[in-house]
C-alpha cells in the first residue's frame, strides 16, 4: 500500500497536510527548483503526485492514490502587486483570503470565490471554479493573465504575460484553468484585478422580472428560494438602482456560504434555465443559484435523486458535477465531454509518465 520507502533526502520538506490522503508522503516544496526536482524524480520512479492547495476542491473527480501529496502552502508569497496596473502575481499557495485582505487596502479585489475558506489561488485556478460575481466580473478563466507551471517531467513553463491584454503565443494558461494540475503543477499565477467602487447594496426582490430593472448588476443570487440583487458602483448610482428595484435594500454585500452537506454538487446549465434548475433539485437540497450564469451550488445528505437530476441537466446541455461525496457510489463527472483522445494526447505531452493526479479528470484521464 502506498509508499514503501521513506526518501530520507526530502524528509526536511515533510509537512502534515490535514485531510490529505494517507499513507502518502506529505511534503511542501519551498521553491520552483524543489518542484522541478521532485517532479523529475517522481516521473523517473513512476510515483504518483497529488497536488494540494487548501484542500477545498479535493472532492472533485475520481480519487487519486498518491505516493506523494505536494502541498503548495510554502509557495504563498505575493511576488508583485501592481496596484496601479490592477494586476497581481502570487505563488500558487497564496490564500485568497489573505490576498483579498491585502489588496482591499486599495479597494481592489481578485473577484475569485467570495467565501474561500482555506482556498488558494493555485487551487481555484486548477479547479477552474469562479466567484459569484462572475456574471459581471467574468470567471476565473477569463481573469488569468499568466500561469507558470512545472510539467509532470519537471519542465518550467510559462504562458501568457503580466499585461492585461495579450495574444503572444498559444494560451496554455487557459488550458491550465480547470485542468486539476494534470498538465503541470501551477507554481504562480498573474491575475487581473477589479477595483471595488465605493457604493454597494443588496436588494431582496420577489422575482426575476423585478431584478431585471438593473441591466448589469454585480450578481443575482437565489439562496434557498430568496432572490437577491447585488449592486456595486458609485454611491449615487447604487442608490438609484436600489430605488428602481423597489425591494428591501441593505448596504454592503453578505455573500452566501456554499451550501453544506456530506455531498456537494455543482450543477451547470444554460443561463436562462438557472431558476428552473433550482426547481429541479431533489428534496430539500440547500442551494445557491447564480442567475444569468447557469451555475447552481447545492448540497445533500445523500445522492438520492442525483441520477435523475444529472439526466435532466445533460438533456439540456448541462452537467451535474459532484464536488464532494463518495465516488464509489456516484460517478463524479457524468458523461465525459467529446474529444477525450485529444485531451489525453495533450496531457501526455506535459506529463508523459502520467504522475499528476492521474485519472482525476472526466473519462478517467
Amino acid at each position: 500500500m502506498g509508499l514503501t520507502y521513506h526518501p530520507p533526502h526530502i524528509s526536511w520538506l515533510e509537512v502534515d497536510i490535514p485531510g490529505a490522503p494517507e499513507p502518502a508522503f506529505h511534503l511542501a516544496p519551498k521553491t520552483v527548483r524543489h518542484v522541478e526536482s521532485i517532479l523529475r524524480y517522481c516521473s523517473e520512479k513512476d510515483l504518483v503526485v497529488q497536488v494540494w492547495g487548501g484542500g477545498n476542491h479535493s472532492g472533485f473527480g475520481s480519487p487519486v492514490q498518491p505516493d506523494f501529496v505536494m502541498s503548495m502552502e510554502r509557495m504563498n508569497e505575493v511576488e508583485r502587486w501592481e496596484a496601479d496596473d490592477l494586476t497581481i502575481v502570487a505563488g500558487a499557495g497564496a490564500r485568497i483570503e489573505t490576498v483579498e485582505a491585502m489588496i482591499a487596502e486599495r479597494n481592489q479585489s481578485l473577484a475569485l470565490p467570495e467565501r474561500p475558506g482555506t482556498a488558494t489561488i493555485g487551487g481555484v485556478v486548477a479547479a477552474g471554479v469562479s466567484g459569484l460575481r462572475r456574471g459581471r466580473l467574468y470567471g476565473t478563466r477569463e481573469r488569468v493573465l499568466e500561469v507558470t507551471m512545472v510539467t509532470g517531467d519537471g519542465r518550467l513553463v510559462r504562458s501568457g504575460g503580466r499585461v492585461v491584454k495579450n495574444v503572444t503565443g498559444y494560451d496554455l494558461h487557459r488550458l491550465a484553468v480547470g485542468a486539476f494540475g494534470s498538465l503541470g503543477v501551477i507554481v504562480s499565477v498573474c491575475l487581473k484585478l477589479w477595483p471595488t467602487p465605493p457604493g454597494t447594496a443588496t436588494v431582496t426582490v420577489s422575482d426575476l422580472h423585478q431584478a431585471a430593472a438593473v441591466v448589469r448588476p454585480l450578481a443575482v443570487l437565489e439562496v434557498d428560494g430568496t432572490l437577491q440583487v447585488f449592486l456595486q458602483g458609485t454611491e449615487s448610482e447604487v442608490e438609484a438602482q436600489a430605488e428602481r428595484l423597489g425591494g428591501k435594500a441593505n448596504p454592503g454585500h453578505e455573500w452566501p456560504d456554499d451550501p453544506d452537506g456530506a455531498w456537494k454538487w455543482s450543477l451547470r446549465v444554460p443561463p436562462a434555465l438557472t431558476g428552473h434548475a433550482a426547481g429541479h433539485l431533489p428534496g430539500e437540497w440547500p442551494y445557491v443559484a447564480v442567475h444569468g450564469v447557469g451555475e447552481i451550488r447545492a448540497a445533500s445528505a445523500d445522492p438520492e435523486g442525483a441520477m435523475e437530476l444529472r439526466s435532466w441537466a445533460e438533456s439540456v446541455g448541462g452537467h451535474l458535477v459532484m464536488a464532494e461525496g463518495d465516488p464509489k457510489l456516484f460517478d463524479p463527472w457524468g458523461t465525459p465531454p467529446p474529444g477525450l483522445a485529444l485531451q489525453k494526447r495533450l496531457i501526455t505531452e506535459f506529463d508523459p509518465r502520467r504522475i499528476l493526479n492521474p485519472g482525476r479528470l472526466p473519462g478517467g484521464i
Partner: protein
Amino acid sequence: MSLVTDLRAVLGDEDVMEEPVELHLFSKDASLMRGQPTCVVFPADAAEVAEVVRIAEAHGVPIVARGAGTGLAGGASPTSGGIVVVTTAMNEVEIDVENRTAWVGAGVINLDLSKQTLPFGLHFAPDPSSQSACTIGGNVANNSGGPHCLAEGSTTSHVLGMEVVLAQGEIAVMGGQAPDTPGLDVKGAIVGSEGTLGVVTRVLVRLLPVEPDVRTLLMSFDSVEDAARTVSDTIAAGLVPAALEMMDRRMCEVVENWLQAGLPIESEAILLSEVVGESDGVTSQASVIAEIARRNKATDVEIAETPEHRALLWKARKSAFGAIAQLATDYYLHDAVVPRTRLVETMKAVYAIADKYGLTMANVFHAGDGNLHPLIAFDANDEETNRIVHQAGDEIVAACLRVGGALSGEHGIGVEKRDLMRHNFTELDLDAQARLKEVFDPAGVFNPRKVLPQGSRCFDFGGVRREIPDGAWV
C-alpha cells in the same frame, strides 16, 4: 488526381478558384507578407471543410483559413502556399435571446453580428477597428480586441463554444451554453491560435446587454506624457472605463485632414474615453475622469452631447489606419503591450527610436490596457528604408519587453513577429507551445510556419530520463 480536381469533386467548380487574378487577390492579408496559394476554396459548412482538410492531408499541402483578410501579422497570408480556405460562405447567425448567446458562422462580419443582435438589446463586445470588415472566425483566430475590450476582455472571454475541423477532418464541437464544461478547456487553446490548430467553422458567442447610457469624453493635452499619466491615474483611481484610447498630434492631423471630425489638431495628444452603464453611474464616472484629466493639465475636456457626435469621434478613432495612407504608401505597425504603469516611459522610448532614425511615426493606441500601436509610414519599395523601419520596429518591441511587456496585444504573431517570440519566451516555453501544435496537427497542414519560430521544439530535453543524483536536488 490533381488537388484542384479533388477539391472540385467535393465543393463544385465554382467554389474552387485557381485563376491567377483570383490567386493574387488571396495571396496576402492586410500585412506586408505575400504568399502564393495553389487555389482558393469557399466551403459552405464544417462537412465541406472536413473534406478539404482530408484532401489537403492526402496531397500534403497546407491549409490557410481566411476570413476578411484584415489581419496585420501575416496570419492569413499563404506564405507556404497551399489552399486558402475562405470562410465567408459560412455566415449564419442563430441568436438565443433568453440565454444571451448566438451560434455564429465563422464568416459572419463582426459588425453585422452586433447589428443583428441589436433589436434584442444585445451586442458582441469585441470591436476591432476593422469590425465593419473582419469576421468572427478571424476574431477567434487572433483573439481580437478593440477599444471596448478594456472592461469586457478580448474575444476569448466571449467564446463559450465552437465547432472546429481538426486534423484528419474530424469535426469537434466544444463548450456550450452551460458554464465550466468539465475536462480540459481545449477551445481556450484554440482561440488565438491563428488557424494553426484547425479551422473554426462556427462559434458560440456570449452576448452582452446594450448599456442604457453612455458618455464619451474627448480630452486634449499639451504632452503625450500628461495624457499617459491621465490613463494611469484613471486606472489607479479604480475606474475601468469601457474604452480609453489615445491619439498623438500627428495621428490627429492625419485623421482630421481626412474626416473633419473636429479633433483638436493643435494638441500634442488626445484621449478618447467612454463610460457605459446607467445614467447616474456614467455621469459620475465621466466627471471623475474629467477631473483626473484636468489635474494632469488637460487643455480641454469635451463630452459628446449627441449620439452623432459620439459616432463621429469613434469613426475618427477607427479610421486612423485608413487615414494614414495619406502619409505614405505603406505603414508598419507594432502592437506590443506594456503594463499600464509603464506607459509614460515607454512612449518616451518609442518617440526616441523614431527620432533616432528620422522616421514619420504616428501613434494611436488602446492606452487603457497598455496596448501600443506605433505606426511608421514609409515607402516599402525603398530597400534601405525598409531595413531601417524593421530595425526601428524591433527596437520598439525590445523597449516594450524591457518594461515587462509582451509582443502583441491583439494583432497576433503570424509571420511578422514569429521570430521575435524568442525574446518573449524561454526555450522550454516555446517547446511546450510546439508540443501543443504537434498534438493538434501532427501532419503540419494547418497554417504551417506561423506563430512559432523554427526549431521551437527542443527534442533534446531529457527531463524524464536524466538521472538526478540522490540528495542533489533540495
